Structure formats: structure tokens, C-alpha cells
């Protein structure tokens, strides 16, 4: 058993020797509808505080909600994509509790009549052998609609939490933004892979939201959030253990780490003969631990009842089928198809997926780039920068059209590889399109054969000994000559062309 500064944890392998982990994930997705769930206020991210509000989302006396029809369509499409049943009739419910960032002191949500239920999502985790993937089926309990709360900013105190703060600022711009809550059934049987399954599941949900075009699903902006319920069952027991609910898990990497940490923390408590407290815990990205939040006992009572201000949602089979027809190709199937079309190896495809480049490569190929070049550019420098900056590939000045243009410049022989890399840097530095960058930086291969021939002849004359070796059959010695020609032409020659010229001058077969 090892100990960190805050609380003891049990070695991960030891946890698995004695316990089976059980996990439940709740993912909240903010829909990217133009207006809020129950009023006409805009939903733009990052507006001045309290500028996107009205009597409805401020919960002023007398104000009433009206359901956003696009929001309902979105959740039905999400439900269908998660292989769920869609309720033919369902209602909203009020979840009652007091909190300053909730204008009405109840959240309009759904309770025992979710609009989508009983589905599943197949997620892929890397196979144990390291090549290829294993598919793990995560069962979905429900997906339902609700509204987001406002945002509290607790000022003063050390933790940024409400306890100990000097005062709190409230921004209700987020209040009423449509949220979809997707809840899994208890996930069992993943054993040591549980943290990976957690990450892969959240990644798959994220991918699905983007494919459905219902949310930008950006965890770092809070438009997708995950709560992880984790418990441990002693091996051989059928009795579920006491669970904790970990919040503030704001990246895919955190999902994996938080689940793993909770397994190790609970393992230490149970191995020591203790009992796990049922509570909400907070994940701390910096220290990699969870700490206790409020105790979540069964005494917490939200007094749910059907929302009387909204009429029930009745959905016909025709409506559901019409929405089903709008579903995109499932991301997993699409990846397989594209991998085949592009001729990537499993490893290459894996890199592309983890870089978040599938859509960008698809668009680049559509714009005329080769699959190989598209992969090279999107998983290269820009991916390195995105990873370092915590951004997405699409956040940079590079576009699929630029990738196609760059590839065309290379294939037409205007640029060689090292020049193309310089052009890429210029594009990323927002200097313009690849052609503009190449022009501005004066990057162009020497196309003039006579100039190149002169350079080759000069090098052959200066290196008679090496030239003789090549003539004598040591073709690999030509490399040194090529290097000198490239140097003499300041890199603006095509190395393959130089090689061919040298060999032909020396009368050797290439």
C-alpha cells in the first residue's frame, strides 16, 4: 500500500486481486441549439455575464417555459444513435432544491419518464496485444432533457468553492441552456480495463455528438461534462459496494485517471476493513486525486413531480422514423469504411483517431489531397501543437483546402518535402494559403535543368574519387554527391531528380 499526501491508496493490481470494479457514467451534453431550452434567449458561449437572459430563464415571478422543439428533436436523434427506445409519451418533471445559481430553485428535468431509454453504445479500447481494438458494449439506461443552471463564481477563500468564499457572483447566461443527460447502466466485467472503458465511452459519446451535429461537446468549455460513479465489489460477491460520484472530470484523460484513482482509494479503505462513504467527490486535475464534497445520502430528496407548466411530449412513430433517417453513419462503422478507403494500417488509423483528425482528413481527401499526405499533415506539426496547447486541430489556420493545396504543390514538383514543411509553418503562423506562403518565402524547386546540370557537373568534378566509386558500382556512395548538389542549390532542387542526373552522368543504372 502506498500513501499520497491526502489519503491512502491501494496499489492498482492489488485492488484487482480482491475486487471487481463497477462503474456508472453520467454524461451531460449541452446542445448547440441557437436558443435556450425553455425561452428564446441566445446560447452563445462567452458573452458578457447576464446579457443572455429574460424573465423565463431568470425565473421571474409569472414567467412560464415553452419547450424548444429543436432540443426535443436533438435528444430523440441522440437516443436513436444510442440504440434507445423512444417514449411515445413523456413529461418533464421538477427537481426541487435550493441553490443560488438556479433561478427557480427547481430544475426542469425528466424523472421517471425519460424520452429515451434502454440503449447501448459499443466502444473500442486497444486490444491487450497492442494491435487492433476490442469492442466493449456499454448499456445505456436513459437519455433525458433538462436545463442547465447558471454559473457561480465564488470569490475569496482558497478553494474557489462556496464554503469559505467572501462573496459569490452569479451569471445566468448558462441558465436554461438545453442539457442532455445520458446515464449508463452499471458497467461490470471490465476489470482492469475499467478506466480505459470509461475514457473510451466518453470519447465515443463525444464523437457521436459531433457526428450528430447536436453539440460541440467540448469538455474544456464545459459543454460536455462527466460524473463517474465508482464502487468496488469483493470478488465473488453479488452485492454491489457503496459508490461515490466524482464530479469535475473535465477531460478524457481525467475520466480515466479519476476512475482509476477512485478504485485505488476505495480499495485502500475496504482492504483496511473500513466502509466507503456514499458521497460526491471532486476530481483535482493538478494533484490527480479526488476529495470529499457534500455527503450524498438517501436523505437527499428532490421532491420530483410532473412539471405542470409544460404539456406532455407525444412522439409519433412517423416523427421518430423521420428523425432516424437523419442519423449519420455510426462513427465506428464510418471509421472502418474510411480506413479501408484510405488504406491506413490499424496503427495509422489509431493515430488519426486519437488526434481527432478523421473528419479533417475526410475533408482534405475530398478537396483533392492523397490520403497519405492528408494523414501526414494532420497528424504532424499541427497535432503536436494542438496537444501542447490543449486545443483542437480545427483551432489552427490549417484547413482541409490548404492541405490539398500543399499536397498539390508537392506533387506538381514545385516544393520538396522540406520546403513543404516550411510552408506548413507559414500557414500555421497565419501567413496565408500554401501558395501565398511559398511565394512570400521564395520557396520553389530549381526547375531549370541547365542550372541543375551545371551544379551536378561541378560537384562531380570536385569529387572525382567518389564519382569513380559510383562508376565502379557503389551506387550508395552517390548519397554524398546528392547532398553536395542539394547544398549547392540551397535545397531548392528535387533530390530524386538530382540522383537520376548524377547516375546518368556517370553512366550507372539507377
Amino acid at each position: 500500500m502506498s500513501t499520497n499526501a491526502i489519503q491512502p491508496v491501494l496499489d492498482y493490481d492489488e485492488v484487482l486481486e480482491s475486487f471487481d470494479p463497477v462503474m456508472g457514467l453520467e454524461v451531460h451534453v449541452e446542445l448547440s441549439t441557437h436558443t435556450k431550452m425553455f425561452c428564446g434567449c441566445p446560447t452563445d458561449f462567452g458573452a458578457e455575464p447576464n446579457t443572455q437572459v429574460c424573465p423565463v430563464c431568470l425565473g421571474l415571478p409569472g414567467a412560464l417555459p415553452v419547450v424548444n422543439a429543436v432540443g426535443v428533436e436533438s435528444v430523440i436523434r441522440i437516443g436513436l444513435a444510442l440504440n434507445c427506445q423512444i417514449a411515445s409519451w413523456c413529461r418533464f418533471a421538477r427537481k426541487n432544491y435550493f441553490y443560488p445559481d438556479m433561478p427557480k430553485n427547481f430544475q426542469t428535468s425528466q424523472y421517471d419518464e425519460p424520452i429515451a431509454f434502454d440503449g447501448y453504445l459499443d466502444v473500442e479500447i486497444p486490444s491487450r496485444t497492442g494491435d487492433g481494438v476490442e469492442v466493449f458494449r456499454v448499456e445505456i439506461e436513459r437519455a433525458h432533457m433538462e436545463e442547465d443552471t447558471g454559473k457561480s463564481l465564488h470569490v475569496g477563500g482558497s478553494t474557489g468553492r462556496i464554503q469559505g468564499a467572501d462573496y459569490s457572483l452569479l451569471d445566468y447566461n448558462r441558465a436554461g441552456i438545453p442539457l442532455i443527460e445520458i446515464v449508463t447502466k452499471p458497467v461490470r466485467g471490465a476489470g482492469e480495463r475499467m478506466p480505459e472503458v470509461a475514457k473510451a465511452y466518453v470519447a465515443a459519446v463525444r464523437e457521436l455528438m459531433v457526428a450528430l451535429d447536436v453539440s460541440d461537446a467540448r469538455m474544456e468549455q464545459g459543454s460536455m461534462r462527466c460524473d463517474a460513479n465508482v464502487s468496488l465489489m469483493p470478488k465473488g460477491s453479488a452485492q454491489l459496494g457503496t459508490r461515490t460520484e466524482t464530479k469535475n472530470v473535465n477531460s478524457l484523460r481525467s475520466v480515466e485517471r479519476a476512475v482509476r484513482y477512485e478504485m485505488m482509494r476505495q480499495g485502500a479503505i475496504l482492504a483496511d476493513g473500513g466502509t466507503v462513504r456514499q458521497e460526491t467527490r471532486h476530481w483535482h486535475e493538478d494533484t490527480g486525486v479526488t476529495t470529499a464534497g457534500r455527503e450524498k445520502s438517501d436523505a437527499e430528496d428532490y421532491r420530483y413531480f410532473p412539471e405542470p407548466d409544460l404539456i406532455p411530449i407525444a412522439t409519433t412513430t412517423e416523427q421518430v422514423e423521420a428523425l432516424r433517417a437523419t442519423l449519420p453513419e455510426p462513427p465506428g462503422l464510418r471509421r472502418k469504411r474510411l480506413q479501408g478507403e484510405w488504406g491506413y494500417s490499424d496503427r495509422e488509423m489509431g493515430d488519426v483517431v486519437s488526434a481527432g483528425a478523421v473528419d479533417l482528413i475526410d475533408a482534405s481527401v475530398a478537396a483533392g489531397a492523397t490520403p497519405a499526405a492528408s494523414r501526414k499533415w494532420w497528424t504532424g506539426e499541427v497535432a503536436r501543437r494542438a496537444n501542447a496547447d490543449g486545443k483542437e486541430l480545427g483551432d489552427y489556420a490549417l484547413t482541409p483546402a490548404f492541405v490539398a493545396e500543399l499536397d498539390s504543390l508537392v506533387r506538381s514538383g514545385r516544393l520538396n518535402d522540406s520546403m513543404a514543411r516550411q510552408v506548413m509553418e507559414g500557414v500555421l503562423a497565419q501567413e496565408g494559403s500554401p501558395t501565398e506562403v511559398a511565394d512570400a518565402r521564395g520557396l520553389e524547386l530549381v526547375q531549370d535543368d541547365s542550372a541543375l546540370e551545371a551544379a551536378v557537373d561541378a560537384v562531380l568534378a570536385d569529387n572525382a574519387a567518389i564519382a569513380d566509386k559510383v562508376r565502379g558500382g557503389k551506387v550508395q556512395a552517390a548519397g554524398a554527391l546528392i547532398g553536395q548538389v542539394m547544398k549547392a542549390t540551397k535545397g531548392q532542387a528535387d533530390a530524386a531528380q538530382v540522383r537520376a542526373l548524377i547516375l546518368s552522368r556517370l553512366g550507372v543504372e539507377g
Partner: protein
Amino acid sequence: MTTDLTRLSAAQMAEQLASGAITSVELTQAHLDRIAAVDGAVHAYLHVDAEGALATAREVDELRARGEQLHPLAGVPIAIKDIMTTTGLPTTAGSRMLEGWIPPYDATVVARIKAARLPILGKTNMDEFAMGSSTEHSAYGPSHNPWDLDRIPGGSGGGSSSVLASFQAPLATGTDTGGSIRQPAAVTATVGTKPTYGGVSRYGLIALASSLDQGGPCGRTVLDTALLHELMAGHDPLDSTSIDQPVPPVVEAARSGDVAGLRIGIVKELTGDAYQPGVQANFDAAVAALTAAGAEVVEVSCPHFQYALAAYYLILPSEASSNLARFDAMRYGLRVPPADVALPSAEQVMASSREAGFGEEVKRRIIIGTYALSSGYYDAYYGQAQKVRTLIARDFEQAFTQADVLVSPTAPTTAFRLGEKLDDPMAMYLNDIATIPANLAGIPGMSVPSGLAAEDGLPTGLQVLAPAMADDRLYLVGAALERMLQEQWGGPLLDRVPEPTQLSKEG
């Protein structure tokens, strides 16, 4: 013009405005003068907006002088129940909690009234958040019944009823969750209609119990009430429960009053010993008059009505406990930090503000509702109450196969004395025994004057109920009854109401 303009009906005012016999400024000023003279004794208004009312009146007069097409009621003054939000005018719902709050938006009903250019005289008193049958639960003191200032004007809309009965406005708005329009009408000899649920937009009506609340018109005559009904009603996209259908032809019905061949059902469960003798006697006489006018009378039974009050006092507090949760001192309204805490938490400020801002009746219902919705009790209380509600709706469905309208006394007694039932919530709740079933079923109901009780000389009312979206039938029956009874009485009952200033009672 020497006659007192405030004594005219709204329809007569509208005619005289249209003909140019009077101006809206004259009419509005006459009401403002009347308010200044009598409201010290009646205490029907919580806020009077003389300036705003006169500004609208001037505008109407100017537009009319230019020959502009105006709404038939343009220029006829109106009083607004203080539960409806009004831009720029205080809206308290009778609660300390909202003292000084000025809404940034108009209720849909208020927006329609403003668009039709009715000068708004002010906001009328009510039981706090519409919880009560007497206005005694108003945080700003009770209103007094113009028939006897020692008595209650009904509630929660006692401000609106007493405004009408003391000629301080010809029209007023109300809201009816369990009888808050109809019972005040009955005890003041005025008319009030609770429309079909969804007939009038609830947007901007401070919610008591969302599934029961319904805004509606109050007037001194059946026609006036119909004219206001027509103005208030109609689909509103801002209220999801608003019905997207044409407004029933209420004005046409009020002008007709033809009940020949109409089947009138007497609800067996809403008559008998529980009703004061004079109330019952006037009801019987009214039914006889309707029979004489050609209506066919049948007796119907609604066996589940006996559970209506119990179900109502679970559903209402449950919804109210949630609707009133927003009054937490965080964004608007009263904020009272706890006295004995140096650095109070948000939760402590919420608790102490709610402790200070809500009256006893409101707290009682919040506690009952919170309890009824709690896990472990929900099925036994809220769940059972919803089942009763379904059974009551079925009782009505069944009854309406035998009758076109149903009738009953509106309230079991005439106006009781101020303070008489204040310490006995159950006695207070029983006032609404006849009016509550309509709210539970969502059907429309009206109260029209049926006379003065022989034993105490105070007004009694007859309630008419109709199937959903058949609000026009209420006006057929109401108009027929009004016409016949006024012939018997030799004029409106309100001609006999004493002058409030003649009485010594103050405050």
C-alpha cells in the same frame, strides 16, 4: 353631465365614449375621484396609478378625435389584480416578499389590456399569493366588503370584487385557483368567470398552483364580464398550456341569454344542509326562474366531489411549494439577513428572508406541499390526489352527458365577518367547497348574483359550470338569470349597496 359616471356599466361607458358623449379623461378622472373618496374605507387598491391611467385616457381621446379605429373597450378604466405583472407598476401578489418589486415585463393579459388602451387605474388587493378566501391574508391588510365593511369581500380576489361593488372601477381582472374569482363575486353581488383552463394565458400571472390557476374577468354585469373575457382570452405562445382554439362566443351569448331548451343540471352533492338557508333559498328561486325561461332542469350526481377539497389541498400546496421556491432573496424582492449571524451563507439569507417575507398561511401551505411531495409520502398524498382529480373529471364528463350546464350555489355562506375564520383554516377552506371541482377538472365556471339572503341581507351567488371550451354557455345562463332577477328586483342589486363613506368603519 351630472350623472355619476362610475355607476354606468362598462358597456354603457364604451357606448358613450364611442358616441362622444363623454371622454375617457372624464371617465377616468371620475373613477380616480371615487377612489380618493371611498378607498380609505374599502382598501381595495394596493397601488393607484392616476398618472398612467390619465395618460392612456388622453391618448384614447386624441385617437378617437382623429377618427382612429379603437377597441370597443378603449378608454374604459380597469383595475388589475396585483398578481399580474405590470411593467413599471409595483406587483406584490399581496406579499411582503415582493414589496417594491417592479416587474420588467407585462403579463400577456396586461399586454392585451394595454394594447386595447383601457386605462389601468391600479392594482387590487388579494390574499398573499392568492392563498385565502377573504383578503385577510394580504400582507397589506384586508379589503372590506362594500355591503358591510366589517365583512370580508371574498378572496383571494377581494380587492377586485370590492373595487367593482364600490364603483371604483367598472372592470377588474382576477385569477381563480379554487374559487378566487367566483367566491368574491358571490359575496359582493358582482359577476366573475373562471374560464376553461388554458383559455386565458397564465404568462405573467404569479403562479400559485400552475395546474389550477386561471386568469379571468370580473364585472358588475354579465355583458361587461363577457366583453372583458373576450379581450383577455385567446392563444398565447408564451404559455404552453394555452389552448390554440378560437375564443368561445361569450359576448354573443351574454347578449342573447336564451336558455330555452337548455338542460340545467343541479349537482346533488353541492346543495343541502351545508349551505346557509338564504343561500339555498336564493339558489332554488334562481333555478325556478331559469325553468320559467324554458330551461329543463335535471339532477345529476358527482359522487367523488366529497374528496375534492382533500385532493385540492394536496395538489395546490405541492405545486405552490415549488412555485414559491424562487422567492429566495437572491435576485429580487425582500432580502433579510439573519440578525444573529455575522457572515451569513446564501442558505441562511434565503431562510431568514423567507421567514420574514412569507405570511402564516403561505408558510402553512409550503410546509404541507413540501411534505406531500417528499419521497415516501408522494404516492400516498400527491399521487392519490391526482387519482381523485381524474375521478372528478370523469364525474363531470358523466354529468355533462345529462346536462348542458351545471349549477350550484357559489359559496356555502354569505360574507362572514373579518377575523371570524382567520384562526380556523379548515373553516376558511370550506368556503371553496363548490368552486374547487371546476379547477380540478379545468372546466369553466361563473358566479352571478342570485339575491340577498333573507336572514342577513347580504349577497348570494349562483355558480354555472360548463364543459371545457363551452364558456359561452356560462354567459347564456348568467345573462338569462340577470335579466329575470333584475326584473324582480327592479334593477341591479348593487343599486342597494350602501355608500362606504356613510359608514364610520375605517381601516
